[in-house]
């Protein structure tokens, strides 16, 4: 399990740039002496508490004796706040998310940052995350730039423009002449201007897309003479291919906007393609992220996906001013990801993984599950909550899990 170093608020996956990592290394080396001396006293104290003890110890320059005393007391306090075994933490997490559900807004989108990119929010967004859907409705990336262009607005804008996925059909219109077997592709000036692109570059890129045939270049258009042997169908398909050709940018990125945030320029996008963006040298790969959880888990692995679920949920909840403890979100995120891939809380997701036929039947598609379990000769082990409820036995969580035997 990865250590939880949570930076509240906007928290991209890896907060530290290469430089900062180095700095931290040095710091840690210094601390190693102090922390190491007390290492055997740590016991089961969590990392965060342990760190904060030494943070304070260093700040206040405490004597060794006092540190010892502090650790001792901290351990005692910690013992008081640990979960009770058998606690039904799952249902508590579900309640913590479900109960304030009605307070979540219904609106489907809002504007991230300063009115530029629409992002899903409210209850639909929570549903999207929890269901483990493969497509995010308002997919958006937050691209951080490398040190060279981070503070240069012009370069950042240039790069942002470069990212936008532009196809021939976005900037040009076509006229086919089936008799002469020619096609005329004319650039529309307005659309080029709108996107702030270079007409000449575009024309040459379109030219590259033509596989066979002669191309004549005019100021504003290309006239393509296809080979005479082309059938009409072939001609049309060739033209369509050219029209769909990507002239520049990264596929999937529809819009980009440069925003200033904490003294640096970052790019927000509409549409997402994490894998392709990460390959670009201009970006800061440690902080660049997307709001598409499935994509994160595919590109960066399931642990990153788990983290993304927590971050995204936390973001939407705090936008709606709903306070839910992080641990509840962690339980949910871990349940969604512990199989190694993201599975939603839907009938095709983790519900299907439950081995109990009763639990599945009580959720959805009752009849189907009963017939399937008969067909495959399944056994109901009566271990979960619903199953025991159905047969009228104590439920095996909380106090129902504890059994007492009186001493003879």
């Amino acid at each position, binding site marked *: 399990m990865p*250590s939880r170093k949570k930076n509240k608020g906007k928290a991209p996956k890896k907060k530290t740039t290469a430089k900062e990592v180095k700095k931290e290394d040095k710091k840690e080396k210094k601390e190693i002496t102090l922390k190491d001396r007390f290492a055997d006293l740590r016991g089961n104290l969590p990392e965060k508490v342990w760190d904060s003890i030494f943070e304070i110890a260093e700040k206040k320059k405490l004597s060794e004796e006092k540190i010892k005393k*502090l650790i001792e007391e901290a351990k005692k306090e910690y013992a008081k706040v640990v979960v009770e075994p058998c606690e039904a933490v799952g249902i508590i*997490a579900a309640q913590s*998310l479900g109960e304030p559900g009605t307070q979540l807004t219904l609106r489907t989108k809002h504007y991230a940052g300063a009115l530029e990119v629409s992002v899903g929010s409210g209850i639909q967004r929570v549903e999207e995350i929890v269901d483990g859907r493969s497509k995010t409705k308002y997919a958006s990336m937050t691209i951080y730039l490398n040190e060279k262009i981070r503070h240069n607005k012009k370069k950042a804008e240039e790069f942002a423009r470069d990212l936008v996925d532009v196809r021939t059909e976005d900037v040009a219109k076509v006229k086919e002449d089936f008799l002469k077997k020619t096609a005329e592709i004319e650039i529309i000036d307005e659309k080029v201007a709108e996107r702030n692109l270079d007409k000449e570059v575009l024309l040459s890129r379109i030219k590259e897309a033509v596989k066979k045939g002669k191309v004549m270049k005019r100021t504003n258009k290309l006239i393509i003479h296809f080979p005479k042997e082309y059938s009409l169908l072939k001609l049309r398909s060739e033209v369509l291919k050219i029209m769909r050709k990507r002239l520049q940018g990264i596929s999937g990125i529809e819009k980009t906007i440069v925003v200033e945030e904490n003294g640096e320029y970052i790019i927000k996008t509409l549409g997402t393609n994490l894998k392709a963006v990460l390959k670009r040298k201009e970006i800061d790969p440690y902080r660049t992220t997307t709001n598409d959880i499935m994509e994160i888990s595919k590109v960066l692995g399931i642990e990153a996906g788990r983290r993304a679920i927590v971050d995204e949920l936390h973001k939407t909840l705090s936008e709606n001013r709903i306070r839910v403890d992080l641990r509840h979100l962690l*339980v949910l995120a871990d349940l969604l990801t512990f199989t190694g891939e993201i599975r939603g809380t839907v009938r095709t997701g983790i519900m299907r993984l439950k081995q109990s036929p009763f639990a599945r039947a009580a959720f959805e598609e009752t009849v189907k599950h009963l*017939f399937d379990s*008969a067909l495959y*000769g399944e056994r109901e082990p009566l271990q979960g*909550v619903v199953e025991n409820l159905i047969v009228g036995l104590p439920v095996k969580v909380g106090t129902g899990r504890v059994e007492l035997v009186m001493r003879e």
Partner: protein
Amino acid sequence: MLQKRIGSIDFRVLSPDIIRKMSAIEIKTAETYDRDGYPMEEGLMDPHLGVINPGLRCKTCGQTMKHCPGHFGSLELVRPVIHVKFAKVIEDMLLTTCQKCGRIVLSEKALKEIEKELGKGRDTIIKKLKAKAKKVKKCPHCGATKGKITVDRPTNFYLDKQRIYPTEIREWLERIPNEELKFFGLDPKIVRPEWFVLTVLPIPPINIRPSITLESGLKSEDDLTHKLVDIIRINERLRDNIEAGAPQLIIEDLWDLLQYHVTTYFDNQSAGVPPAKHRSGRPLQTLSDRLKGKRGRFRYNLTGKRVNFAARSTITPDPYISINEVGIPESIAKELTVQERVTTWNKTKLKKLIKENKVITVIRPDGIKKRVTAENKQDILSELDVGYVVERMLQNGDVVLFNRQPSLHRISMMAHMVRIMPEKTLKINPIVCKPYNADFDGDEMNIHVPQTEEGQAEARELMLVEKNIISPRYGAPIVVLDEDGISGAFILTMDQTEFDKEKAYQYFYEMGLKEIPKPDRGNKYSGKLIFSQLLPKDLNMHYKSRMCEVLEKTDPNYKCKGEECPYCVTIKNGVLVRGVIDENSLGEGKGKLVDALARNYPPEVVRRFYDVMSRITSDLLTIKGLTVGLKEFEVSEKIHKAAAEAIKECMVKGKELVKKYKEKKLQLIPGRNLEESFEIYIMRLTSEIKQKVEAQILNEKVRTVLQDEPELNSNIMIVSGSRGSSANLMNISGFWGQAAVREGRPKRGYHGRVLPLEREGDVGIKAHGFITQNFMQGMDAEEYFFHAIGGRQGEVDTGVSTKVSGYLYRRLANALKDLYVDYDLTVRTSSKHIVQCLYGDDGVFPMKSRLGKAIDVEEILERIEKGAADAKQKEK
């Protein structure tokens, strides 16, 4: 007593043999009753199938209605029919196997390869088999040509466009060798494919399809019985026709009809089959309908059960009872009972109860129940001894569970102590409204009485209100004083509040003080002093109050003086030295004072605090009076002018924007087009203007609270944070501002305008819902309608979002409910899979955390240092 416990349940497909073996009687006639109204022998109501009339005995097991579980019968089908629910499996098999030899039509080599992949799951294997078999023309095992199978869903199969009947299908399936069943995910020890074609049909016991006798004496049969009658009737007709040598065509028609009835008997909603209808035209409710859905057996009866020992009534508030208590009407207390075991210690007490007629029944050690009546009272009194169990009426001090639906979180059900009271309603302290989300506009709540000692102990230790003050959702108080409670505490602790001795003594009495403190203001007591009596003597705190925050926000000249701030709360050794108690001390999720009381002291401390506070505040508000009037919403001429100017400014700037927009000279917001940018600019403009005026009004109103003798009105509520906000003030005394629909201005309506009052094509401020008036002045028609548009949207949204969030919650709960923390602090599923290696990555339970923080190291350090200092002083 529980004698046998279900360990596990196996699911199987019934084989024809088993169906015959478990059949108590073979059903042979479609008649249900004879002319005299008695059930027909070998008919659907045959008494061998179980008893449903009290007094009669079952012909199979000889038991009475209460004990006879019912018995299955059987019906031999003249011609086999396909079981709809297995049609899909049959289809898969016909597509992939050879009709002649029954083997899968793939070469041994190909089969071996697929065998290796068996772990991949049934669906993928079957998909693969089908894809490969599709290309095969000839069976590699016996050389027979493989015909093309088509299906007319759900139950008609064709081989090379020739219909194949269930008899042929059954023979085909019989030929599939046991060894190859694993490719279909089946275990030959458990199931054989030919069983999917029914030759004998189990007839369910009459217990599950009871007939009702109507008042007129007519018998009304269950839907299942109707369906079974249809099946038997067609079965008979088919037999007769076959025996009479009827033409093939007629036989096939009847056969199809039999198939239809059997199909709809199992599932009356299967695709491609018209649902079977009752005479009245209502679709029959057959087997799968009984199980399915929200009102089906599973969700309605098995996961939601009806219980005994419960009561329900309207709730009313009573601030004079403890938060731990619930007032129960005598009439309910008399009905509800608790079991109490007779021991040497409580024998006399229980005997007294019997004498007082407070015991309903007595259960002897041999399990025989006796109702206590006037006649046998004396006998029972002399007989009663250790080992008996007594069912007595509810009394004061019993523990009950109290619940209000919807039970969205665990604090929707808490334990309360019984307090029997007059009247017919359940009474609760208004402090517990928050967790239950209850109010008193007619809400009803439920009571459940735990019967066993174990249950009662658990309720007392874990579910009592005083032990659930802090929310497990975020680790801050959830059971809190609200509305009048906060207003009352605020008024009590204001600097201006004083009490004469008489009143103060009354409050000291409520607290149960043994020593009366000395008056601190000459002959009078300050409210702060009275409040301090509720705090533990070792409490030390300092934090910012809401009052201070409000002042900082509204008055640019005001500055918080930190430790010395007269509005911020300073508590030294259990004495409220400075500051007022408001939302930041008591409120939900942020009340720092309650948080400290609930966390650092035994639960009795918070309970006492709440109990006394609710008494004092309600008394205080009754004598002082907290009210709302039009007067306090009147604002000074200055504000009126400011508002008028603001609106004017808005209009002017709005016009400029419209002009720029029309001339397309508006500076675009990156990523937005002209129209979107225009809308955003206008929304920004209107909200900015509104905020300006709002702050001014709030500032003026805060001043009134600071007066020597403040009026106790809505301004107190706003400043203390108990109810209402500056936005409400603004709406009443300022102006309403922009009416918003879906985060934007109202847009839809007539062509080019929202209301018929507007000019077509007008995009100006007023034409799209800017409201310049307030509730005091009233709005003109145009504004009124815009206001209604916004209001309606809010109403619709709440309706939709409860539905959406209800389903979201159900799914979350179903997915997560089996997770628990094991003794090694791992989080596991019911089948023991590890989900987390350490709960929440640090093992801390949110309810015990401080707003998510595990422990406060600085606080511990302070404590250590203070302890050291104290020790030093002692030495000296």
